[in-house]
């Protein structure tokens, strides 16, 4: 009589199972990381928009000054003590305003506002003229995504005159 042979039934080994788990874990880790990157990009976009609004709002405030105030160091320094809007972005950004006569500069008046809200006058122009000035507004901040330094800037040419 022939003894019935043992059926050759094989399951997965522990090593195979562990490799399977590892692959699955890697896949999910990748997808979750992708999701996290999307969230960080959203945050970076919000920062960029806030920076853009910050610069535009400051430019609006400066262009609304009378020409005498715009060319007065103390007036601009006082104006810059207040953040241009209520966004929390102002608490992490360094703002620089540069004013010079246009088209031919004769020195540069430069102000810096720190994230804490302290305004310093870095330089004063020899003469800002009586007709046109060039006003640069720049804001710099450290990006949440990647910790990179980013800047946003705008330039306006403002003339002496009043609203009509």
């Amino acid at each position, binding site marked *: 009589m022939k003894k019935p042979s043992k059926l050759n039934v094989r399951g997965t080994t522990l090593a195979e199972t562990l490799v399977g788990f590892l692959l699955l874990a890697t896949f999910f880790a990748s997808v979750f990381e992708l999701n996290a990157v999307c969230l960080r990009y959203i945050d970076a976009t919000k920062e960029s928009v806030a920076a853009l609004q910050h610069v535009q709002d400051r430019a*609006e405030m400066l262009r609304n000054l009378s020409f005498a105030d715009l060319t007065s160091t103390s007036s601009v320094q006082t104006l810059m003590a207040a953040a*241009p809007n209520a966004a929390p972005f102002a608490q992490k950004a360094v703002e620089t305003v540069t004013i010079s006569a246009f088209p031919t500069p004769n020195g540069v008046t430069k102000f810096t506002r720190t994230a804490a809200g302290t305004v310093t006058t870095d330089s004063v122009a020899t003469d800002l003229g009586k007709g046109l000035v060039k006003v640069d507004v720049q804001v710099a901040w450290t990006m949440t995504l990647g910790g990179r330094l980013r800047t946003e800037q705008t330039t306006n040419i403002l003339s002496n005159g009043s*609203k009509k």
Partner: protein
Amino acid sequence: MKLKTTTSRLAFTLAETMIALSASSVLLGATLTSSTALQKSFNAIDTYFATHMQQIRIVDYLSRDVKRGLVVTTSADLQTVTITVPNYIIQAGDPEAVANPDLVGTPRNPTMTYTPSGVQVNYGAANSTVVYSINGVSILRTENGNVTTIASSTDQLVPQTTDVELANTEYAKTSITFQPIFTSGGTTAERTGTTVYSTAYLRNKRRG
């Protein structure tokens, strides 16, 4: 007669089956939960970004109208803004267009009048009225009765504008918020975190 022997076939024991069932349930549960969470998260990101873009569009529209306006008035609840805008462009039916139809769509030449406070620039006697308002989930811009939907979102977009009068001018401060899809009990902080701020000054002297 010899009885036939049963074939020795191996099967899973109850314990093995139960363990396998538990492990696969955990795995399947984790997979389903993860994929659902990820889909929700991606959907929320997509919606958040789309609504954020709408916030920027509202700011653009409103700032443009405020800058070219003569007077800005906001309602008590800060959610309706009325702006009086000069008719800078000659339109069909205007006296200039009746006299010369080719002038439709061209800039109107302003006239200057001398007032005790100085020269005043005028663009015709008639002005346009632009109204920004909320209607359900939409933000509407109505110019002389013509309605344009400038933003629409189920995320409860709420623009709030304050007009501040100065000596000869006026400015409008606007903040726009929305309620993101993901909330924890709808607390205020989550809406506050979506705020976009904007400030726009009149380019004209305020009249009114």
